[in-house]
């Protein structure tokens, strides 16, 4: 019988059915970081349990790492303690740790793929909801809580109910100035922030076929913002070309065998899906969020919704968002002044994000009064970008070029909004208080849209600011 990738991977990793009816699922690759793992190690110690598959567990530090100081101890004593705790836990359990001095540290969802640890047909878990990123490779990748981190450390398995699969086809060609981030925001806007509850999202169609791996990662990353526990793209030649020669990729004969296995996991063309959604690429415009969840997005040409233009059941949500954002319903999003611009995060902190922006900002300057920071997703991204001279382009345009980490996506390090500042951000969440100030305001958009906002000082259309008219890459 024809099967989807999700079903094939799920079946291959099923250990058994538990008494609750849930599946005991084998997790082939476990990624850990400093925020959600220390309590799990603590629980293991209390229970007298060890780490069952240390060689299938990989660690890095990302959430709380300062991006403007590199010498320990860090000025934030709690952050310093958390890094040292992870270092100790990894050493005691013989877990590979991409530490700050490794040259490989970075946001866990950027490190896994660039090291070749993330591979097709595998199961991946991490105590972070954006683990869905790894689905870009045709892996089934879940964000989990700390108790599940403990379970996976102890048994390399977790208890979970099987998901339904929704195929999302995006066909046609994206317009110039429209990026993978816009595709993600458009999908969430269409299907809602909880539309994916109970589903895995399988992304396909011409747009995904022609996307680079980094673009696929951006879309899969935001699956969870649409409520889907995971999202994936079937592995293809683009996937294999990306993985070839990475530190943890198989080599020689093992490579050939692995590629054959990976191909076999792709969804069969005639498999059944629980749901299918069709999206026309031409309908997707540069998109910006105006509210307090990632589904509250509009195209740059649209006006912010007003409570009297929406169905009754949405009125309270819109009023709450407008009040928090201090925006007026019915007003244009374009032209709203910004205070901070942030380019980075597991959504848009990869080399191609910085290359695309650098290509357009040369010779331009960040507007007066705007703080613009660029945070590479990993030390590897930073060093390649620096070799290419991208750092200098950013710095001469008035951006700050920082060290790798999650930074202002969730502001667990010193990079925070102050008061009710407005931030044009390439990150993934615009929740109230997300960027470190309880009243801080976040507008999500693509990295080039952030750059356009940084340069003009207000929410702007990339197509106008940068004259993006030739067909852009997706």
């Amino acid at each position, binding site marked *: 019988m024809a099967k989807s990738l999700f079903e094939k991977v799920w079946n291959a990793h099923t250990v058994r059915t538990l008494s609750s009816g849930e599946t005991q699922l084998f997790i082939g690759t476990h990624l850990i970081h400093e925020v959600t793992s220390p309590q799990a190690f603590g629980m293991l110690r209390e229970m007298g349990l060890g780490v069952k598959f240390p060689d299938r567990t990989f660690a890095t530090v990302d959430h709380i790492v300062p991006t403007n100081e590199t010498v320990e101890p860090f000025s934030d004593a709690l952050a310093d303690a958390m890094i040292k705790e992870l270092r100790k836990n990894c050493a005691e359990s013989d877990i590979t740790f991409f530490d700050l001095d490794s040259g490989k540290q970075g946001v866990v969802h950027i490190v896994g793929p660039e090291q070749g640890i993330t591979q097709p047909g595998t199961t991946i878990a991490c105590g972070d909801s954006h683990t869905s990123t790894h689905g870009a490779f045709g892996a089934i990748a879940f964000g989990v*809580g700390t108790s599940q981190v403990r379970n996976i450390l102890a048994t390399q398995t977790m208890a979970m109910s099987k998901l339904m699969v929704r195929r999302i086809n995006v066909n046609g060609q994206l317009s110039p100035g429209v990026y993978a981030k816009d595709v993600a925001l458009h999908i969430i806007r269409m299907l809602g922030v909880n539309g994916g509850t109970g589903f895995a999202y399988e992304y396909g169609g011409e747009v995904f076929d022609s996307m680079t791996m980094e673009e696929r990662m951006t879309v899969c990353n935001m699956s969870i913002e649409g409520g889907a526990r995971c999202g994936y793209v079937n592995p293809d030649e683009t996937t294999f070309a990306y993985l070839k020669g990475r530190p943890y990729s198989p080599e020689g004969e093992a490579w050939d065998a692995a590629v054959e296995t990976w191909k076999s996991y792709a969804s069969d063309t005639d498999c059944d899906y629980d749901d299918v959604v069709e999206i026309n690429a031409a309908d997707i415009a540069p998109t910006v969020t105006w509210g307090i969840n990632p589904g509250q997005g509009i195209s740059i040409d649209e006006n912010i919704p007003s409570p009297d233009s929406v169905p009754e059941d949405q009125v309270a949500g819109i009023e709450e968002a407008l009040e928090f954002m201090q925006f007026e319903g019915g007003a244009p999003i374009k032209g709203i002044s910004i205070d901070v611009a942030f380019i980075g995060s597991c959504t848009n902190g990869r080399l191609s994000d910085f290359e695309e922006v650098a290509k357009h900002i040369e010779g331009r300057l960040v507007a007066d009064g705007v703080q613009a920071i660029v945070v590479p997703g990993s030390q590897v991204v930073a060093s390649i970008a620096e070799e290419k001279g991208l750092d200098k382009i950013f710095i001469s345009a008035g951006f700050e070029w920082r060290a790798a980490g999650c930074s202002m996506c969730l502001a667990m390090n010193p990079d925070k909004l102050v008061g009710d500042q407005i931030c044009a951000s390439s990150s993934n969440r615009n929740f109230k208080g997300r960027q470190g100030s309880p009243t801080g305001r976040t507008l999500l958009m693509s990295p080039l849209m952030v750059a356009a906002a940084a340069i003009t000082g207000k929410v702007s259309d990339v197509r106008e600011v940068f004259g993006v008219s030739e067909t852009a890459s997706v």
Partner: protein
Amino acid sequence: MALEKITQVSGTAVSVPGNDIDTDRIIPARFMKCITFDGLGEFMFYDVRKNEDGSNKEHPLNEQRFAGASILLSGNNFGCGSSREHAPQAIAKAGFSGVIAEGFAEIFFGNSTTLGLPLAVATKEDIQSIAAAVEADPTTVVTIDVENQRIRFGDQEVTCFIRESARDSLVEGKWDPIAELLEGDEQINATAKKLPYV
């Protein structure tokens, strides 16, 4: 490892209305700089309850008449966003023993169940009735009958939904699956052997 069989939870209630209440709101990221979950209770819904100068906002969670509430009422897609278990940990450590909402985000649901915190899905209308009863008389005891998927408050009773796997694990005292996962050791090894990349 014998766990408590959670067939029902009971207590006075408080309502935190709204849809899409995310885990950043339940526990802001700045309070996650910790290596244990101890002490998270006092930071639950911190920015919802407090002004930036630390003074209290006007909010049901700050009202004396709802002090000691152990059942939380809310809207749809409760617990969306980050996978941080710190969110249900904070709710539990703040003294809550159950949440009733129109719907829950997936990861939050799993994290809560694993802690033995029952999450019951009810209709908007029923939640409004419960909230109205609690508003009229904050001493109203609200009971989530996990086993029978019912919510009782005052002399009223409504239906709720608790996913079967969660319900069974709560009622049978297996909400933390670690013991059973460990028992599968031989089969775990057999599964690992079949996977070429492991």
